[in-house]
């Protein structure tokens, strides 16, 4: 009997972390299920009776038994999820899609460019890289949020700053009184003299479509190579396994061939984002 890829397994919400007014991290207990993922892969989360939506785990891939997902409230499924208390059950399917080829990042400088809730999948990647931090020449985390209130993982970001070989820079579109950091869209952080070996660097990008677009344009201007720019593609998804057609992006099914594609792969596609 072949496995039923449409069937979710139950998972229990064991903690909810309020990241921002509309972003929360949900910690799920997998109830002993045989489940593991690699950074870059995503899962389909079911809110019982409402439906499914795709999310990338934000926790470290090597942590078994639980996974975390950092989720922004935007619509039907996510709004209902935000009403669920600790102890409630959800369903998960997956993991789906391809992992980041982190072995290709070894010995290189890695730029992690995130916008808004887009830092979630990048946190999982960063934690995976952290397991062997010495293997990477340097890691730049550059993150933008709309306002200081919208910054996720505040505590961790300030801890990561202190790690050797890691540099963290933040910006907000609109500052408030207490903000002393940079103001402007996240791409301004790319005007950084320390990014001086761009043709050899890896860039990993996740954020809203508009940021993916202008982020890519700027990275290319700065000399990054198309095959070294890894982009998390957000498409409508249903099956997660390359059968239902929803996530079509040019010749790719983003669920199966992605969700991370390089600029080299998608550069000929009209309006890829």
């Amino acid at each position, binding site marked *: *009997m*072949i*496995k*039923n*890829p*449409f*069937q*979710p*397994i*139950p998972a229990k919400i064991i903690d909810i972390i309020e990241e921002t007014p509309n972003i929360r991290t949900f910690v799920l207990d997998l109830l002993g299920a045989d489940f593991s993922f690699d950074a870059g892969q995503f899962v389909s989360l*079911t809110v*019982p*009776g*409402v*439906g*499914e*939506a795709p999310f990338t785990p934000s926790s470290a891939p090597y942590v078994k038994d639980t996974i975390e997902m950092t989720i*922004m409230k*935007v*619509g039907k499924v*996510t709004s209902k999820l935000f009403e669920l208390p600790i102890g409630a*059950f959800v*369903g998960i399917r997956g993991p789906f899609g391809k992992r980041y080829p982190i072995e290709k990042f070894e010995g290189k400088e890695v730029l992690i460019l995130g916008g808004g809730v887009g830092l979630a999948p990048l946190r999982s990647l960063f934690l995976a890289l952290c397991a062997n931090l010495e293997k990477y020449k340097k890691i730049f985390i550059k993150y933008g949020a709309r306002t200081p209130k919208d910054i996720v993982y505040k505590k961790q970001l300030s801890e990561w700053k202190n790690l050797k070989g890691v540099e963290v820079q933040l910006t907000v579109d609109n500052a408030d009184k207490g903000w002393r950091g940079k103001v402007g869209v996240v791409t301004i952080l790319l005007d950084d003299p320390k990014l001086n070996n761009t043709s050899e660097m890896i860039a990993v990008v996740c954020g809203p*479509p508009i940021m993916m677009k202008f982020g890519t344009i700027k990275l290319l201007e700065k000399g990054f190579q198309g095959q070294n720019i890894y982009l998390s593609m*957000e*498409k*409508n998804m*249903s*099956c997660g*396994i*390359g*059968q*239902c*057609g*929803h996530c*079509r992006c*040019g*010749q790719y099914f983003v669920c*199966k061939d992605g969700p991370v594609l390089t600029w080299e792969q998608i550069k000929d596609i*009209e*309006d890829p*984002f």
Partner: protein
Amino acid sequence: MALYFLSRYHLTGWLRKLKEKYQVILPQYYEAKLYYEKLNGENVLSEENFYHALRKIRPANPLKEFFFTPKLKVGGLVENKAVLVPFDDTPRIIIGVKNCDLHGLRVHEKMYLAAEYQDPFHKHERSRTIIISADCPEPEETCFCNLLDLKPYPEIISDIIITPITGGYLFESISRVGEDLIINTDHNFRAATQENIAERAAIRSYALEKLQKINQKSLSVELSEHIKHKTEHEFWQTHALSCVECFGCLLICPTCFCFLLYDVPINDKGFERYKIWDACYYNAYARVGGGANPRAEFGQRFRNRFHCKFMNFYWEHKFYACSGCGRCFAVCMGKIDIRKILVEV
């Protein structure tokens, strides 16, 4: 494997024998139109009807509905236990499948069975089905399989191919299962004669010629490139003008494979999950969380169908996700003929 002849006189006897062991599905007439239907006690089994049905082109309904019903339960969680979906194990035979519908099955094979994940429901439906396909002696105005390099007679997937000829039927067994079905169910089959075989060859060349007359303008060998480079929004918008957005064309298409996983709540205890037919013309099809929509305008969605069938699918599998069956414009209230667009593009 081998060629046999069965006289018109013996046909119904053979069908009756099949019905003892199998669920039989075959094209049946309803007011001059043909539908694939299960043979039950009520629909009449007349040889006359069968003969005419077999000589017609493909039925109105697409074959895919026997492998993937419009709303199929595929699982769920109730009180945190997986909802088990029982499989129907009744062996069945579908008779009278035309090449265009076989091609539709082939597209679905690529989508649902050929990759890393297989759809266990589709796989099961395939495994319990014997396919007896048939020639198209008289292609009609809506047929254009020839433009897509397909023939008006079965080329793939079948267990047996039937061709109505003078005084009876020519049977060609293609698979072991098909061969067994012929030699074990009836003593009235006899070896086909050279004349029988020559008659089939003549029927086929006539059908090919007729198709060529129906479809005089051939498609470019670089169709996928033409589609790719047809970026003018105007072109697609203009062709989409008379569309009334009923999306019948996509639902009735034997190759269209899109679906949506849709959950139905079961009290407060959980949910059942259904796989339902979906179509890329729906506004919400590609919309992402929060409302952004990469194909917000209908013209973009209209064009997407051509990208899917004649470009993206073709690049990956080297054949088109369209079989030339003509159902989409046979149902179209706006009279949009896909051939016209393919020729103009």
